[in-house]
């Protein structure tokens, strides 16, 4: 038995890689917990959506992003920024609306951007970024790059008109090899208080893409290894073909929808408890122990380190300056600004 397991693992998985990604997932979890605390302390304004429960999805896919690839997502974007390499200090400062933030404190939690690392945002309008992602994929091919676009969207976003218009175009352009986009539907079972059973008469999200001529598959979004496998295979196929593809990652939003959500009203304690058993971080810990890749002590060390990093990030954010009022007029348009900034 034990032997069998070993061989199965060595073929597909590099334990060191899993440990590295575990580190990232734990860091994101810490970041989210700290940001929720800071929100309650009134240090973060606007709104806040945390990624708790979904970490394996972003970790598995983003770790396979190539230099030339692009990433775009909605407002649940902290994990994406951090996993692409943003400094937790700058990310936290952005949530705090500080000058030292990733986008100078002007975007906040929902609008993290990191163009140098290929993160094309952070968007607050549900579904609104989907056409942008498809356009980015087209632009990549049009300009002769062999990059692809990882386009993250929620189950709720799939019900919006913007999604439909974009999926149709992705199907059409993909036929000509001009749309290397991977739709990553993070099906976390809810759109705010609306469960997938109530938001569509057919909750087979992967299946919906068939009618756009887009191939698709489902992946267990709680299993880092499953996500890694799917990403590794699909991204290279799409890079090669230039055809759109869709992956439905089945996952769960363990946290509330946002900073002001009373989820007892629309989901039962039992349901949440059941999904907690599949917490991707918990599952991965068990896996790493089974593989002898780590021991309990090592796991604790990783968590402590993440905690320290995030504490430092919060301190940095807290102590940073607010952007000065004049900054309201800068960065509104790209390049030199003819109209604004003269006041």
């Amino acid at each position, binding site marked *: 038995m034990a032997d069998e397991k070993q061989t199965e693992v060595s073929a597909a998985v590099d334990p060191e890689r899993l440990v590295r990604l575990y580190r990232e997932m734990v860091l994101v979890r810490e970041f989210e917990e700290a940001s929720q605390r800071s929100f309650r302390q009134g240090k973060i304004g606007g709104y806040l959506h945390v990624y708790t429960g979904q970490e394996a999805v972003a970790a598995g896919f983003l770790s396979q992003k190539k230099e030339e690839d692009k990433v775009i997502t909605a407002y649940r974007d902290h994990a994406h920024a951090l996993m692409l390499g943003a400094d937790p200090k700058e990310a936290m400062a952005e949530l705090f609306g500080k000058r030292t933030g990733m986008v100078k404190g002007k975007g906040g939690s929902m609008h993290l951007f990191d163009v140098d690392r290929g993160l094309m945002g952070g968007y607050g309008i549900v579904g609104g970024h989907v056409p942008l992602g498809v356009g980015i994929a087209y632009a990549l091919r049009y300009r002769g790059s062999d990059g692809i676009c990882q386009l993250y969207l929620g189950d709720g976003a799939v*019900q919006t008109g913007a999604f439909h218009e974009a999926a149709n175009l992705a199907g059409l352009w993909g036929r000509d090899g001009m749309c290397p986009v991977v739709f990553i539907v993070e099906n976390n079972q809810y759109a705010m208080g609306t469960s997938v059973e109530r938001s569509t008469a057919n909750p*087979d999200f992967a299946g919906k893409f068939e*009618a756009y001529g887009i191939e698709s598959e489902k992946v267990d979004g709680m299993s880092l290894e499953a996500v890694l496998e799917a990403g590794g295979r699909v991204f290279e196929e799409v890079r090669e073909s230039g055809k759109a593809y869709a992956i439905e990652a089945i996952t769960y939003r363990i946290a509330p929808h946002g900073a002001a959500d009373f989820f007892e009203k629309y989901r039962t304690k039992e349901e949440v408890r059941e999904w907690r058993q599949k917490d991707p971080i918990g599952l991965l810990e068990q896996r790493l122990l089974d593989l002898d890749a780590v021991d309990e002590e090592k796991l604790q060390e990783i968590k402590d380190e993440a905690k320290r990093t995030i504490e430092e990030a919060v301190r940095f954010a807290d102590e940073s300056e607010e952007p000065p009022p004049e900054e309201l007029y800068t960065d509104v348009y790209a390049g030199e600004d003819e109209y604004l900034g003269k006041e």
Partner: protein
Amino acid sequence: MAIRETQRRHEALGLDEDDLLRMYRHMLLARRVDERMWILNRQGKAAFVISCQGQEAAQVGAAYNLRPGYDYVYPYYRDAGIVITLGMTARDQLLSLLARAEDPNSGGRQMPGHFSSRELNIVTASAPIGVQYPQAVGSAMAFKMRGEDGVVLACGGEASTSEGDWHEAMNFAGIHDLPVIFLIQNNVYAISVPENLQVAGRIVDRAAGYGFPGVEVDGNDVLAVYKVAKEAFERARRGEGPTLIEAKTYRMTAHSSDDDDRRYREREEVEEWRKKDPILRFKQYLHGAGVLDDAKEREIEEEIRAEVDEATEYAENAPYADPESAMRYVYAEEE
């Protein structure tokens, strides 16, 4: 032998000879009014024409299932066949074309093809493509909430399915099992854009993603359309929810009187489709079934010609709306 086969076709659908002749008249009237509108346009009397030509079977076949004034219809600009089946007349069409005060759709305010009739439950069209769909599911929701067995027929071209509104409406209809039928008249073009550059995958397949059936039908065969629409209407009335019908047809004219279709499609293609003209096909069926002979065919043509002539003359002599009334009908008025 052949006659018996064809007879069985309409009889199996519960249609008698009177039904068939009524359907034929509706189709022919829609066609002849349309042809007259083009003439008036070329004479400089009508500013704009948008045609139903080629789509009469899809329209009349579906609309023949409607209960006028009870069910609701959200037609699109080509649906002359639908509004005529419901009871609109040649005169109504021409008054609208020439923007006269008596135009029942809008008192001469809307473009031609923007049908509207409170009595017939024809809901006023808006010019942006696709906006009728969310409105139509709203009406269907109202039927459901009131516990009435009304059905809503919502129509559009194949390109209207590329609009987000269509998706949101389809999804909502599916979730709430609403009594609505989406009739997509796939006439192969959206102005100059052909279907293969417009639709990824197949329209009819999209229904599955919303959890209800999609049916494809030969849109130039009026009885075939009647049959699938009948099933869809029955389903809706039984409370079993929506149906998507994709009627495969062809736009026989240019997109509108402002379009020159020679710039984007071959004459041979148009000629091929002219051979499949739905009126020609139905006429052949009626002859085969012994419902129509040459004399009867001529008689109907004559009647319709007289009706269109009378309507043209009436409309040309009808007054325009009083400029003083320009601000009326923007908001509802007390009755």
